């Protein structure tokens, strides 16, 4: 029988569940979940996150809400290399190109998602077989004042550009903590947005991502990283 607990009723319960996973391998988790471990994650993006969502009792599914709705906590898996550096940027949410420019920061999806995050660290080095990769220690995180200011600054800058209809000029270089990148199955996917003249046009969907340097600093503050030893 797969282990599929009910959604946690408190932050403490979620924390306790997450801590119990520290040190387990993905193979052990998959066995408890009655699922198979993919050989490679290239074509199974999101498998680790879904596995952890089921194991921890996340309830939102694909809804545009924090994974643990009752608690307002978002679950984020963060693959790291052998010295504890994040292997990749972290997806936050897709961007509603039409109305993002008129949304306040405090009402934004980004803030709703990042207000309270349960980070689950996972070994992500490609030389470690997927089944053998281990789950690390969890971290319940909320951005502090400096981080919030940084995120809000990026939000303001990036949504301003989108609001001007100049989304095509946004590259991955913009934003100190957060960047905008295409978020689509392939380059043919389209969402409706505005051009520079305010005319509705079809655009490549985009999403907000946290830079690896930003999440790396979070880890450095919270953990003893392997490279420090």
């Amino acid at each position: 029988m797969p282990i599929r607990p009910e959604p946690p009723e408190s932050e403490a319960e979620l924390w306790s569940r997450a801590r119990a996973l520290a040190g387990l391998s993905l193979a052990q988790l998959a066995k408890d979940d009655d699922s198979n471990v993919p050989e490679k994650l290239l074509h199974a993006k999101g498998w680790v996150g879904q596995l952890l969502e089921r194991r921890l009792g996340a309830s939102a599914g694909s809804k545009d809400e924090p994974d643990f709705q009752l608690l307002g906590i978002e679950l984020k898996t963060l693959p790291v290399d052998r010295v504890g550096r994040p292997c990749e940027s972290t997806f936050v949410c897709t961007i509603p190109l039409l109305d993002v420019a008129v949304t306040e920061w405090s009402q934004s999806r980004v803030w709703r998602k990042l207000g309270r995050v349960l980070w689950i660290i996972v070994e992500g080095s490609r030389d470690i077989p997927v089944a053998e990769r281990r789950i690390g220690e969890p971290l319940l995180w909320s951005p502090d004042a400096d981080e919030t200011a940084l995120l809000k600054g990026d939000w303001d800058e990036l949504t301003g550009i989108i609001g001007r209809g100049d989304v095509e000029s946004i590259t991955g270089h913009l934003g100190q903590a957060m960047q905008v990148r295409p978020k689509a199955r392939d380059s043919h996917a389209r969402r409706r947005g505005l051009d520079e003249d305010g005319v509705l046009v079809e655009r490549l969907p985009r999403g907000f991502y946290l830079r690896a340097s930003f999440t790396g600093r979070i880890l450095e503050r919270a953990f003893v990283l392997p490279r420090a030893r």
Partner: protein
Amino acid sequence: MGRIEVLPSALASQIAAGEVVERPASAAKELIENAMDAGAQRCDIICDGGGVTRLSVTDDGEGMSEEDARLSLERHATSKLRSIDDLSHLTSYGFRGEALPSIASVCRLSLRTRRRESEIGVTLETAGGTQLKVTPAGLPVGTTIEVRDLFYNVPARRKFLRSTGTESSHVTNTVEGAALTRPGITFTLTRDERLVRELLRANTRAERVEQLFEQANLVAIVGERGPLKLEAYLTRPERARPGASGLWLIVNERVVRDRMLATTIAQSFGSVLGAGHYPRGVVYIDLPSELVDVNVHPQKTEVRFVDPRATADAVYSIASRELGSALSLPPSPRNRFGVRNGNQPRTPGISMWGKRKPDDEPTPDAALRQPNPADEQVVEAATVTSSSLPASSIADSAALIATPSAQSTGLVRDISEASTHSTLLIRENTAQTTSGDVRWSSLRFIAQLRQTFLLCEGPVGIYVLDQHAAAERVAYQRLLDQYRSRTMAAQTLLFPVSVELSPEQVELVEQRSEEIAAVGLDVRVRGRQQVTVHAIPRLLQRASPERLLCDLVGEMARSGGRGFSAALEHALSLMACHGSLRAGDTISQTEAQALLGALDTVDFAGHCAHGRPVVAVMSYNELERKVGRR
């Protein structure tokens, strides 16, 4: 089973000899003590073939009449004891009357003696305690006892003897011990026809210590508490050795082996001595004879204190204070060996004798907590009266040992003050290694040398710091402070580290989980032989979690169920060592300056937790002399 029969006296003596005469050195000890009891001013010892072939002790004491000489070879014949009450006031080394007959029973012995008032002396010869041959002889005043062919009739015992060199060394050690106990006697030791020790009569203990510890750079401390007097000459922390073999303990002029006292002396150095390290030197403890029982073992190298705890407490109190001021040692806030600090209350109503006192009767601990200005007079009175018959007041005398140290006349002095006419080599050598009053943060970091040393410029000279020792000292002190204030900060590991342990160690981890958590380690048991480490002390992020856990578990296992605090401090010291900046690590200017600043916050007396000096200083004057500018 055969019939029970009384053993022949010769056989009984041989069996008894097994307890008294273990090796040539123990025979030498008994013979030298007899000489000292006889009031000798000079004692000449000859040792050939490790003391097995020949061991001779000649003294110029009062000698014996023929009748006494004959009796001295009889078991339990002694001039030093008449009744059981005398046992509590013994001032002589021997008293059991069994050493000489025991020695005689296992060798060929000759005894030559003459009393001053006799015109002629007597020679007694015996082999294996039998075949006594007595002949008159013209002899100098005093006694010579010569032991030949030791254990010739007990081959089993002879097999256990070590090499000639080893046995000779034990005899030498015995002679040195005797010389330390009685500075007023001249001792010579001739080994295989070579004079190897000539210790001329000294006026003070300090002089005698100097004769034996040339160039040892000893620190002298003197103090007293109640009837206990302490006089010690000890090496500086950097000269400490593993094991207590270089530390002489002399209680009431008797060399003793006492682990508790040795440990207490080591503990009085605070945290600058490594685990299991002891200073070299000599510790004299004098206290009324009724407070010490020397009749514990035939060899009399063990003593039993009436109140061992109070004795250790007093020794610790004097030694730690005087050493602290002499060497600028950091205060030892909590002792590792159960010696109570003055501000730690005893259990109310329980006297140090384990008897419950009436509630209205003042207890020693009350005196400890409330220093009494009149204590000085009380102590003086006690010191005087303790020599009168105090059988009923032994407890009172001993209790005074535990009185506050306010009245103790402890003083630290250069040993040259202790003996005014001597030109001693034992002195403080502060220029080389200690920090003086320098503010570390005021030093200017110049460069890192060989990725091991930090070269700094200061107001009076150049300072070379051992980067590992300095970082370790800072880490250790901070760990200790955090542990004591229950504020040990832990840092989670990104991934838990799995550690294999023995089942016993895993059980220990389970039993001691709270204490382990208190030192900042988050350890969870995963199986019969597996645990995972999830967090380590924040101060030790460089350390390997496996090693930290093994350090802790290792110390805990060694300490057993008791002495966990001591084990913990040892473990913290090891952990600080393994988790700090090491030789070979590169350090930036900012980090170096931060380390110097951190040293200001640590009272470390220039030594790391293992007793090694952290810094070497060369003054500009010295530098100028070296390059010929002066």
